[in-house]
């Protein structure tokens, strides 16, 4: 990023978001969450707590799940970011998104983007997770509506449907 230590102004920074190269004018300490929401107008990632506890800001950075409210944007310069908006391949929903719809995995929906990304990350690493694996994989995403039952069911169902979840 072209910014000198004496200069607190914004600087230009590039990153790939959902497959597209994007360029933003930001302060280096701007949170990735805020850059996604305010600069790139990708409002799928939400701020539920601002302290990395609720997971509703979860996105993938180079394929790894992170809480974007805790990531200074400078540290993801040049990285490949995936948000919920980038999960479906064109008009076709992913297996996880379909399963969430079928099983009732989304109620109020505010935790859903983070929850689906978390589940997607889990299924990429572990395509055939046990119920305990799913519980552990999603333990960083809080849901106040569902009691988790139908979310776990949705992830299990998506995992049975094979890769591309």
């Amino acid at each position, binding site marked *: 990023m072209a910014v000198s230590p004496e200069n607190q102004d914004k600087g230009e920074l590039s990153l790939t978001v959902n497959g597209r190269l994007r360029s933003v004018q930001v302060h280096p300490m701007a949170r990735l969450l805020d850059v996604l929401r305010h600069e790139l107008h990708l409002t799928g990632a939400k701020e539920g707590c601002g302290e990395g506890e609720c997971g509703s800001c979860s996105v993938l950075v180079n394929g790894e799940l992170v809480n974007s409210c805790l990531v200074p944007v400078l540290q993801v310069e040049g990285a490949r970011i995936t948000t919920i908006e980038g999960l479906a391949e064109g008009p076709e929903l992913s297996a996880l998104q379909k399963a969430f719809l079928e*099983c009732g995995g989304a109620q109020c*929906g505010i935790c859903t983007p983070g929850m689906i990304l978390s589940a997607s990350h889990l299924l990429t690493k572990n395509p055939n997770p046990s119920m305990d694996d799913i519980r552990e994989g999603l333990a960083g995403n809080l849901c*106040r509506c569902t009691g988790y039952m139908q979310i776990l069911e949705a992830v299990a169902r998506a995992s049975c449907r094979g890769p591309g979840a």
Partner: protein
Amino acid sequence: MTETVVGTSAPRKEGLDKVTGAARYIDDITLSGMLYGATVRSQVPRGTIKAISFDPRLDWGEFVTVTAQDIPGKNCIALIFDDQPCLADGRVNHPEEPILLLAHVDPHRLRKAVDAVAIEFDPLPPVFSIEDSERCAQVIWGSDNLFKTFLIEKGNVEDVWANADYIVEGEYTTGAQEQLYIENNGVIASFDREQGLTVWGSLQCPYYVHKALMALCNLPPEKVRVVQVETGGAFGGKEEYPSMIAGHASLLAMKSGHPVKIVYDRLEDMTATTKRHPSRTRHRTAVSRTGQILGGEIDFTIDGGAYATLSSVVLSRGTIHAGGPYHWPSIRIRGKAVATNAPPHGAFRGFGAPQCLFAMERHMDRIAQVVGISPAEVRRRNFLKPGQTTTTEQTVREEIDLGKLLDRALELSSYSRKKAEFARENPARQIKRGMGIAAFLHGSGFTGSGERFLASVVGVEAGADGRVRVLVSSTEFGQGTNTVLCQIAAEALALPYEDVRIAQPDTDQVPNSGPTVASRTVMVVGNLVRSAALGLKQTLIASGLLGSSYSAEEFRAAGQRHVATHGVLRSFARYEAPAGVFWDDEKYRGEAYATFAWAVYVAEVAVDLSTFTATVEDFVALQEVGRVLNPVLAQGQIAGGVAQGIGFALYEKVVWQNGRMQNGQMTNYIMPTSADLPPIRVFFEEIGNVHGAYGAKGIGELPMDGPAPAIVNAVEDALGFRFNSVPLLAEDIFEAVSKEPSGALLPAGGK
């Protein structure tokens, strides 16, 4: 006639948007020229404002400032008693009380400005507990700190003591609980002289906000418009509170001439907005040798915080539910809501019932111990039967068999086998296990004359394209309003579910179908949707455009033709109280609710005595709900409510100091994660409901009432210690066990 839409798991109407990230919540929305607003709050729990100073290092000309003096109308948040100021004017009564509002285009500069306002107070002695409030050493509200009292009397309580074989007493307390919706409170307000005031927000009751803004901003009804946007959880926490935040944003918008967005961060939301009322319930019960309740007294007291808000209604529901699903030949229930210098407490799923039912169900286990019978048996012997009357002398008119419901719950949970197994194995184990039962009921809809007073109106519309839209002010916040009301309309119109839409709750577009609370949406509003839909169908048939049986295309064509000729076609239905339903507001007697849903929950708990932590290992939630209109949604409601109930019982504690919540962050206010909850096994029974759409009863709040007592009953079963308070944390279990390491059961015994 078998239904084809109602009773199926129709997919969530707005589900696609939710799983693709397209759903737009209030903080996802930006308006051109928008400013951000923030609130400067009290630092002291009670006192007078001596001086307000603004740090001269900031250019205050950049900021919009609003104080009580700027309020065009009445400085209050109109609700029931109208005692809560929108902005404190000289006097503060709780440590988060809003005093001053600021707005700026840059939210970061705004934050600094909030920190740059210094307020000097002359403190007054505060009151923080129910007991302190009762003592009236300080009178902080009215003449006696009492927001409201209720008295229910049935039979002849004075006579029961003489004949009692046992008199069983107990005191039970519950703490505050934070709703903890994952989306914080937020609104955007915009004002112009022509259009008036428009507010978009995360909220449950657009017309509550509408009413409050008229009074606050001195505007007529047609100059105030309130629109609910996608709402990320509410649970009651967005029932009355949004009127306050909307009021604040509106004042800033009016003063600045710009749209203003106020969205709280988690710390502000937790500390400053409403929570569940803390409670104290005292039971004194006359019991026969065989464990039959002869009569008793119940003293139910809730802490309302600094202003009345909804305390009188919470108290009402709590007082009416205090006797549980049991037959009381005689009873006196005194309900009381008192004032303290904490931020006002408010609506949270259950609304008084989780508090009083915790007490009742703990008390039933106590009665069982004293009498020497099992927890299941004491309930069986006292369950209400059809034809008997409740504590308010409401006759149970439906064929509910609570004994059978109990039997089924015990079977589903393998209660007897496990209880025996645990009793055998616990002595040698470090991890003690136990089983606990809770039996309860929850009245659907507003109490007594409430529904009549609301006079809800619902519309169903055929638009220019012939498609149908449901018009209600009932909001979706995860519980399935959109889906189920569309299912009902589709069923009534014999149309595919996909052909029915629902309008966004916008007070300019939809009639007032009442607030989205009190487990009334499916039952009461749903019934009106059905009526209005049938009315629409009748109009089209009567006009000759539609035969009495038709295809979806024919319906659409008929609608299109009617609209082309006569303009938009709307059919309305207004609530009418069922005949023969009688409620006496003075004596608090009669038909308190159109119907009750009934439930028996069973919890299996494990307590690890090396860490004193209790965890729920299995949970059976069995309820009779009239009719399940959407199985997936209904299961989701119950599972979610049980999860919140488990949180209420074992995890969620509000730590108070000087009236202020100290643990206002998710790191320190603990709700269960996916790794903490057992499989929550949900089962339904359906005996129908003449007052509800397609036989449905309300289920939204029911699941909140059972988990806490079932769990604490199970903990007692596991350990032999009698806990009468929630939340029950490991530290509390440790305290009890360390004082009585032998784990001896406290002696059963009578008077």
